[in-house]
């Protein structure tokens, strides 16, 4: 039975083309790879190559024909031993190609069916565990965020040989912000690796090592410099598990200071919480307290997924109580109610919490009892805790230092509107940094960031106390 040669598509969007020229005639022998014809569209001209061996039995479409639909038979190929007489045996196609010619519209999983929004399956719900109970009588030790982060890394490196830390100045210099202080002395230069100033490269090296089963902690001197590496973070680290059908992924932590410090101006003062929270395949953690920094960094290092761990230079030196436990690990994806209250909810994270906490204190003096939620994890986001709180207080203010457009607060506001609209007694107010690059001048810098008074005003507005 002769084989049909079909009009090929040059691209998935091509529907028809012109058969510009035949380069073989009836009776010619062809081998795979031989150019048999030229076809053209308005965009390009392409050569059609033979895939099978045989003799051209019949040219079905003549040279110069325009508007030949894709998958139209254009010639018949005779296999070894077949003659012209076989041409009458009717159009036969190799079994392999049959399904292609007939779009399988009876199949439930045809791509067209997926376009129907109603049939898109619901996203599975992520359930994060609750914080572990801290046994009564546990000693609380005042610890800086800096020390808590270092302790978390050291503990995980002691318990898992695969964990190592790499980055600029992490070893000999003891960390640009001294977060890795002492690690080189304890673990040696095999596991505490000074890199050249080459963010894109070492982020990729870290991801490759993670593909191979190691558990890298990649420190960026600041997340501003991770912009050089964002392709490796997003395209390589975040997407590989999906693109590999679950076969391999990147168990890696990218960590370092994020957001504004003091007087370092536009290129060194930006919050990336919203950026990374946009990306499926990443987890994004942004702790405020030292206890959360420790418990969540330990969790991030153990996590089999890529985790963005956003720290803050100004918080590094602040002290908080950290429970003295052998293995204090907190769940990623769980918000913490920092202070209970009933009149309004403030949701914040990272350094934004400093404004939220002070505002809550001030508002308490004015008789407004605010509930303060520390998100701790930006992705996956614990919206359940936020919504439960809103159901109680019916009012919501979000606070962050990042830019206002497409901010974390904007996402929360949208979700609360969709999931708890009837519980809101006032529009959500999102307090954020100004929509400007960070200025250098001290007075302008102060204006560019949120402040406590602004948060106080926002809560008064949503509680109609003005």
């Amino acid at each position, binding site marked *: 039975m002769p084989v049909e040669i*079909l009009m*090929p*598509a040059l*691209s*998935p969007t091509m529907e028809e083309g012109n058969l510009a020229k035949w380069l073989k005639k009836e009776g010619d022998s062809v081998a795979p*790879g031989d150019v048999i014809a030229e076809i053209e569209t308005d965009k*390009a*001209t*392409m050569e*059609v*190559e033979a*895939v099978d061996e045989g003799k051209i039995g019949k040219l079905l479409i003549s040279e110069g024909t325009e508007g030949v639909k*894709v*998958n139209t038979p254009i010639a018949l190929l005779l296999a070894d031993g077949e003659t012209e007489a076989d041409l009458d045996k009717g159009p036969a196609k*190799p079994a*392999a*190609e049959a*399904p*292609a010619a007939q779009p399988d519209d009876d*199949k439930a*999983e*045809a*791509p067209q069916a*997926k376009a129907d929004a109603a049939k*898109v*399956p619901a*996203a*599975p719900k*992520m359930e994060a565990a609750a914080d572990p109970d801290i046994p009564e009588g546990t000693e609380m030790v005042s610890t800086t965020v800096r020390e808590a982060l270092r302790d978390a890394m050291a503990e995980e490196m002691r318990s898992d040989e695969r964990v190592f830390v790499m980055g600029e100045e992490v070893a000999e210099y003891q960390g640009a912000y001294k977060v890795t202080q002492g690690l080189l002395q304890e673990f040696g230069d*095999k596991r505490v690796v000074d890199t*050249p100033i*080459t963010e*894109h*490269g*070492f982020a*990729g*090296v870290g*991801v*490759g*090592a*993670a*593909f*191979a089963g*190691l558990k890298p902690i990649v420190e960026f001197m600041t997340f501003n410099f991770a912009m050089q590496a964002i*392709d*490796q973070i997003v*395209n*390589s680290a975040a997407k*590989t*598990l*999906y*693109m*590999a*059908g*679950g*076969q*391999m992924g990147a168990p890696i932590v990218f960590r370092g200071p994020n957001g504004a410090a003091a007087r370092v101006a536009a290129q060194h003062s930006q919050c990336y919480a919203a950026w990374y929270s946009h990306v*499926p*395949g990443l987890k994004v953690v942004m702790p405020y307290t030292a206890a959360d920094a420790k418990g969540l960094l330990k969790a991030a290092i153990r996590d089999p*997924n890529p985790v963005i761990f956003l720290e803050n230079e100004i918080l590094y030196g602040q002290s908080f109580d950290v429970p003295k436990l052998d293995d204090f690990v907190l769940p990623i994806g769980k918000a913490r109610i920092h202070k209970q209250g009933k009149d309004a909810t403030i949701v914040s994270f990272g350094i934004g919490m400093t404004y939220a906490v002070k505002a809550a204190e001030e508002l308490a003096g004015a008789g407004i009892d605010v509930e303060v939620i520390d998100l701790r994890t930006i992705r996956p986001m614990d919206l359940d805790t936020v919504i439960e709180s809103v159901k109680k207080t019916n009012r919501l203010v979000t606070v962050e230092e990042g830019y206002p457009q497409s901010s974390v607060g904007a996402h929360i506001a949208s979700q609360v509107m969709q999931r708890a609209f009837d519980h809101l007694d006032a529009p959500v107010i999102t307090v954020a940094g100004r929509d400007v690059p960070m200025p250098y001048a001290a007075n302008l810098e102060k204006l560019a960031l949120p402040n406590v008074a602004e948060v106080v005003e926002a809560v008064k507005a949503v509680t109609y106390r003005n």
Partner: protein
Amino acid sequence: MARAASKTAASKTAAGKTTATKARPAKKPSAGGAVQAPKSPPPENFTKEQELAAYREMLLIRRFEEKAGQLYGMGLIGGFCHLYIGQEAVVVGMQMTLKEGDQVITGYRDHGHMLAADMEPRGVMAELTGRRSGYSRGKGGSMHMFSKEKNFYGGHGIVGAQVPLGTGLAFANRYRGNDNVSLTYFGDGAANQGQVYESFNMASLWKLPVIYIIENNRYAMGTAVARSSAETDFSHRGLSFKIPGIQVDGMDVRAVKAAGELAVDWCRSGKGPIILEMQTYRYRGHSMSDPAKYRSKDEVQKMRSEHDPIEQVKQRLIAKKWADEDALKVIDKEVRDIVGDAADFAQADPEPDVSELYTDILL
């Protein structure tokens, strides 16, 4: 203009010469560390079994790619599809030098690498058609495919991104203290990405066991090497990092194998990275929708008729009377059957279940 430039490039790089490989030793070392550049080996004398194995492997890749092109033309493969036809000797020769645990990583022209790494033609083709039995369960496609079992680490769609990743695989080998090597493939186009040189620096600094295989097929998409690269001798691209490089006739599987053996030994013995510039040629356009107007038909035809990697092996097999036309036809048929079976499978296999939309995002 473009055509003239491409001809200049062609004569300069002289891919596919059947003469022996040429060594391009690094410059005399300056104070602070010497790189004794390895001498370039002559093409290896293959045994009958090696010639037959190379013939079969290369033919499998070629037939597979021709079939993929056909299925693309029928609308069964979507998106971008970059065929490897013409470059088969590179992956087949390199794969002959590897041992268990060695890793392979490449860019998006990856079907040949996967077949050479012994991945199942059915699984590769089913991924191309976006079906559930594909290597990535239909979620990766032509450019993003992986096999942990076969140590194939992708399949990467961002030009040059695989170079730091492959360097990271080598980092893991050194960290674990084994003697495995990472084969990191990229093209002449990717060779101009900054992250390649960031990787070179770290690999050399830390003596990582990585072979950087630059598949110079003369065109970065449609831009001839001479129009995109200030230094068109890619074996020199590591000089500033003290990484030696060798130019290899990438159309001769024996030359590839010989250079590959040298490079693998270099890495396994702890000398750090090495560059192999494979001078090769792709017969097809950059992707399926590229009519390749930037080069002449004569140029393509000359490569096909004078330097074809499969034809070279075939001629040797016949000249040495190790196989006659009939024996080779039997191999051709076997290969064609494997590819036909893969194509049938890839069309009959169902698309992924809709629930797969939300799987494999996080562990």
